[in-house]
Structures are given as C-alpha cells and as structure tokens.
C-alpha cells in the first residue's frame, strides 16, 4: 500500500515537472501595467477592470492549458515618465514573474517598456491603447501587439469627419509627446491632402497652471474649430477652459484621449456641440461587453473594451500555442484574432478555449470587432462623438 502511494507521488511529481518543461502550468500570471497616475489616469481603472474581467472569465472556465487559473498583478506605468514605466514593467517581470504584460496606456510609456524591458526579456507586450504611428514600424521581435489602431488611421478618420462637417480650416495644438505629435502630424497631412488648411499646429506642455499664452497664439491663427490633441485630465482641459474663457473658440474637436466623462463634467454646457472620435464599433460585441462590465460592477469607459480584448487574445493565444512562453504565444496571436474560425464574442471565452483545445480554429471578435493587421495592430473602426446636453453621444460608426 505504502509502495503504491509512493509510486503515485513520484509519478505525480515527474508528471508535473514534465508538464512544466513543456510550458504547461496550473497558473498563468499577467501584468496589468497601465497609467494609473498621470494625465490619463481617469481611463486606467476601467481599462484594468476590463483586462481583469477577461482573466476572471478564463480562470473560471478551467479550460486554459491544464486548467490553469489566471492571476494578475497591477503596476503603474504612469504616462509621461519613460523610466518609471520601464521600472514598473521590470518589477512585474522580475519579482512577480508574469507571463505577459497588458499595457501600457500611453504610447511613450509603451515604447519605453517595449525597448527597455519586453524585448530584452522576451516577454509579450499587448497594449490596449497605445496609438502612436511610431509603434507600427518599431523593431519589436514580434513581441508587441495592440488592440487599438495606429493614429495614422485616426488622423485619416478625423480629417474625413472634419471635411464632412464643412470645416475648411483648423487650428491645432498637441500634447508634447509621442502620442500628441504623431496624431497631430497625421491629422495635418491627411487634412491638407483633402484640401483643408491647418492655420497652426503647435505643442503645449501638460501640467501648467495657465494656458492663456498658448490660447492667445491659437486664437490669432484662427480657424473654424480647435483640434485639441491632448489629455482630458491635463493640458487638453486647460486649453479648452482657457479658450472658452477668452472667447477664442466655441467648438472643439476631441480625439480619443480627450473623450471621457470627466471632461464634459469639468467644462460643462460650453462643450456642447463639440465633436470627436474614439475607437469603437457597432458590433454587438460592444454592447455585450458593456453589460458584462456592468454586471462586474464597473462602467466600460474608453479603451476598456480594448483592454478586455488584449487580455483575452493573449490568453487564447496561450491556449492555441499550448504554452505560456511568450515566444510561442506571439506566433498564435494572429491565428486567434483573425478569420477563419468560429466567431467568439465577449463572455464566450470558454467556448473559444474549448474549440482551441479540440484543435479547432477561432476568429476572435471580442468587444471591439478586433481585426489585426500589419505588425499586429487593430485595423480600427471609430465612433464619431457629439457632445450633447453634457454627454458624449454617438453619431455613427466609421
């Protein structure tokens, strides 16, 4: 009897060590490295909850790898401090031993993590919201993916919206970083290609108390609308408030990082009539996700669906690769994200895991109808926003 027990224990230990050698595991850990402090902090919480919702769903299904549970660890990448971002990623890899990272929130932080930590350590990095065009061409050993489209695409969409509204000339100010400059340049080249005129394209610094001088220059240049490529909790808000105070502009165009409830609340009724764009889709995935989020006790804010998709795709690719090793997982991301295969919506991750386990194929649709292109970024559909009665309302999808 004793011998049998011993033999079984030995077999179990051998078995588990074999499984570990094959990359199988009982537990998977993902780092949620987002800008919990800094100029886009109001978006981070809802995004983190989104990513964690996907992990919870996978964990509960007990279908991932060998019935692995998924745990997470949060870290603050900030938004503007590249060294803080790298340090946060370094920590979750070195001391928390995460298998992949969901993050970062801002483009600058993402580039820093990719170049300083993810590439040298060979860890997969999946950003829900980094949109700088620079990330499309950056050397990444195929370890970097994003659930958001490049701003090269957003610039095109914004120019089209502006032109359809009959706007002939724009004044533009951008937050002085990778995200701001990338998107502003993209808007300028696209808008000018459509025959529009950019009267001024000038940077502003975040974190100042007074934007009077910046607004003065913008007002002198003039234009039908002011395009504010900034952050809603920071300089972007300051520029809009200051423009309204001085009566410089009445209407604003708000790109993705300016869309959020905190801005409409802070500015009040004067913001009514302003327009904007934010990645979004009219697929029923978005609605399903919003309901799931509500059930979990949070509001699906901007980029929260992308965060869910980023985490879901990472875990599904692990299943497809039958391994949690980043180098095996990275090869499978495209397979699970794009056709052919059974379509998987939010809340159906268990079904997806099962199909993959049985050797089938899936086409992950998710909350944002994600379709990966190029070097691993979302093709991008956008929601056109109109601020009406103190709320961001959807005009249509494009």
């Amino acid at each position, binding site marked *: 009897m004793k011998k049998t027990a011993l033999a079984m224990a030995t077999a179990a230990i051998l078995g588990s060590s074999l499984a570990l050698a094959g990359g199988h595991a009982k537990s998977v850990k993902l780092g949620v490295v987002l800008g919990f402090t800094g100029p886009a902090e109001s978006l981070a919480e809802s995004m983190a909850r989104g990513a964690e919702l996907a992990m919870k769903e996978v964990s509960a299904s007990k279908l991932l790898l060998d019935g692995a549970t998924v745990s997470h660890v949060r870290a603050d990448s900030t938004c503007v401090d590249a060294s803080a971002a790298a340090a946060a990623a370094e920590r979750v890899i070195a001391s928390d031993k995460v298998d992949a990272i969901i993050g970062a929130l801002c483009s600058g932080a993402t580039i820093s993590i990719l170049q300083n930590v993810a590439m040298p350590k060979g860890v997969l990095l999946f950003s829900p919201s980094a949109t700088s065009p620079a990330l499309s061409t950056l050397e990444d050993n195929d370890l970097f993916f994003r659930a958001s489209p490049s701003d090269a695409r957003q610039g095109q969409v914004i120019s089209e919206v502006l032109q359809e509204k009959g706007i002939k000339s724009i004044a533009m100010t951008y937050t002085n970083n990778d995200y701001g400059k990338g998107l502003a340049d993209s808007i300028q080249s696209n808008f000018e290609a459509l025959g529009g005129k950019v009267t001024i394209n000038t940077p502003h610094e975040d*974190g100042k*108390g007074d934007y*009077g*001088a910046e607004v003065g*220059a913008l007002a*002198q240049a003039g234009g039908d609308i002011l395009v504010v490529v900034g952050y809603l909790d920071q300089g972007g808000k300051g520029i809009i408030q200051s423009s309204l105070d001085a*009566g410089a502009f009445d209407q604003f165009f708000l790109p993705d990082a300016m869309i959020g409830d905190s801005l409409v609340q802070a500015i009040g009724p004067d913001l009514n009539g302003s327009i904007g764009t934010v990645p979004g889709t009219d697929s029923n995935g978005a609605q399903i996700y919003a309901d799931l989020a509500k059930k979990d006790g949070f509001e699906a804010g901007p980029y929260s669906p992308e965060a869910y998709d980023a985490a879901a795709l990472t875990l599904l690719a692990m299943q497809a690769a039958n391994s949690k090793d980043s180098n095996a997982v990275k090869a499978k991301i495209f397979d699970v994200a794009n056709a052919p295969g059974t379509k998987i919506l939010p809340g159906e991750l268990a079904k997806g895991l099962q199909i993959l386990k049985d050797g089938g194929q899936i086409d992950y649709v998710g909350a944002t109808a994600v379709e990966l292109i190029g070097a691993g970024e979302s093709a991008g559909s956008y929601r056109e926003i109109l601020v009406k009665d103190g709320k961001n309302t959807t005009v249509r999808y494009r």
Partner: protein
Amino acid sequence: MTDFLNALTLLGNFLIIPGLTYGSQLALGALGVTLVYGVLRFSNFGHGETMAFGAMVTILVTWGLQSVGISIQPLPTALLAIPVGIAVTVLLTLLLDRFVYRYHRERKANPVIFLIVSIGVMFFLGGLIRFIIGPGDQIFFDGTRFILKAREFKQLTGLDEGLSLKMTQAVTIVTAVMIVAAMFWFLNHTRTGKSMRAYSDNENLALLSGINPDRVVMITWILVAALATIAGTLYGLDKSFKPFVYMQLLLPIFASAIVGGVGNPIGAIAGGYVIAFSELILTFAYKKVVLYLGPESMEVESLVQFLGTDYKIAVSFIILVIVLIIKPTGLFSGKTI
C-alpha cells in the same frame, strides 16, 4: 476706425487683461519675497510653497463653507475663507521662524546658509501640501464666472472681436491694488512700519534706537504670510490650484523682485508687471492685429510671433540675466545681491 477698435479689443482680451491679472499675482508674490529680503536679509525660496500652503488652507475652508451653504454671490466664497487661510499660514511661518530660521539668525549665519535652509523648507512644505490635499487639480471657484462674456461684448458693440472679463480677473486686480495701497500706508505711516524700514535700512542703528528686533521679525512674517496666502489664492482662483504650479511660479516671482530692485517694495510691484507683460508681449502672435491695422490688401502668412509660447518661462530668465548684468540693483535701486 472699426479696424482700430477691433485690434484694440483683441490686444485687450489677450494681452492687457491677462497681463494685468498675471502681473498683480506676481507683484503680490514678489512683495513677499522682497520683504523677507529687506528685513531678514535672505532669498526665501520657500515663498512659492508658502503661497500654495495658504491657498490650500483657504480651499479647505472654502469647501467647509460651501458644504454648509454659505456663499457671497456673485463673488467667490474663497474670499470669505482667506482670513482663516492667512491666520493658519501666519502660524506656519511663525513656527518655521521659531524652529528653523531663528537658530541661524542668532548665530548671524551667512545669507547662503539661509538660502539653503529655505530650499529645505520649500521641499518640506511641498511634501506637506501634497500629503494633505494631494497632487491633483482642485477646483474651488464658485460664484459668477464672467463679468463680461466675449459673445455678449460682440453683440453689444458690433465689433468682430470679443472682450471677456472674468470675475477672478477683476477680483485679482482690485484686491492687488487694495493690498498694495494698504501695504504702503502701513510701511510709511505707522510706527511699526517705520520701525521695520529702519531695521531694514540699518540693523545696528535700529537696535540702538530701541527697536525690538523680535517684534520686527514677527511682523514681517505675518505680512509675508498674508501676502503669500492672498497671492496664492488669487492665482488658484484665476488659473487652477495645483501644488506643483507654485514651485514653477518661483522663477517669475524672483525675477520680478530682482528686476524691480530686491528689498524695494515699489520695485517688486513694478517688476511683477514688467515680467508679466514681457512674457505675454514676446510670445503673443500679432497676426490678426497686423491684419486689422495694415493695409486692406495685405496678406499675412506667418503668425507674427517673436517667440513660441513654450519659451514663456525663458523670457523671465533672460530679463533676469540682463538686469543682473546691466543694472544689478534693479530698476528701482534695491540692494544688490
């Protein structure tokens, strides 16, 4: 004629009113720095954070007043809370003097030691403020936002350009004028004020004529705390209250004090306006003004701007350097550093 009025309104809206407001805020700040320099003989780097501290206490009291429903419409409630802010800040500066500066004063320490000590105080206060109220933006403005809206002005006058006057701008300018007048009256017409000036002029002679130095130092700190609280609150009301911003304000404030002649109250006020207007005038884009005033057919492609707005802070630096090279005593001949 209409063109001329349009150009004038434009300058008024983007240069003159903001310049007067910003200048008043700098002048009040510089007055505090100059008082410390004149009487206590050191450059107080902790002044920016003292302003932030005063503003913070005022904000906390304002929130308290708002929550019990007390307001003084159409003026911002914060004005009602300023006296409490001043009282707490006076307590803070007196405590700091008792436990930090007095030790060095009794040993007749070198001004450089004082300066370094004040930098320490600056970091301590900065941490304390962020600990109490957090590093974020705080909005504590209430009451009527505008006295004159740009859109209303356009309708009223039929001009193309609008002129807007915010309540906070008016309050800032009016308060600054009142405070400065009271300050001069105090320094020139009261016994205490005269003893302060005497002490500042010649310490030994003042002591010989029976002026109590401890009293002079105490009065100075009380005045400095009051000025700092008022300046900090006005700046926070007009722009926004964010602890870090006050540290950035230190440079233009010191530039104002030095340009006007450090230790000289008139100089501090003049310096405040000189710095404020130079920053704005040099970074303003004159495109539309040129279009209004120039001949009908003129085409202007560029913005007609001397410096990008990013260089705003550099302007006060450059003026500071020029003044120190050409006229180190400042415009109104204060003491040289």
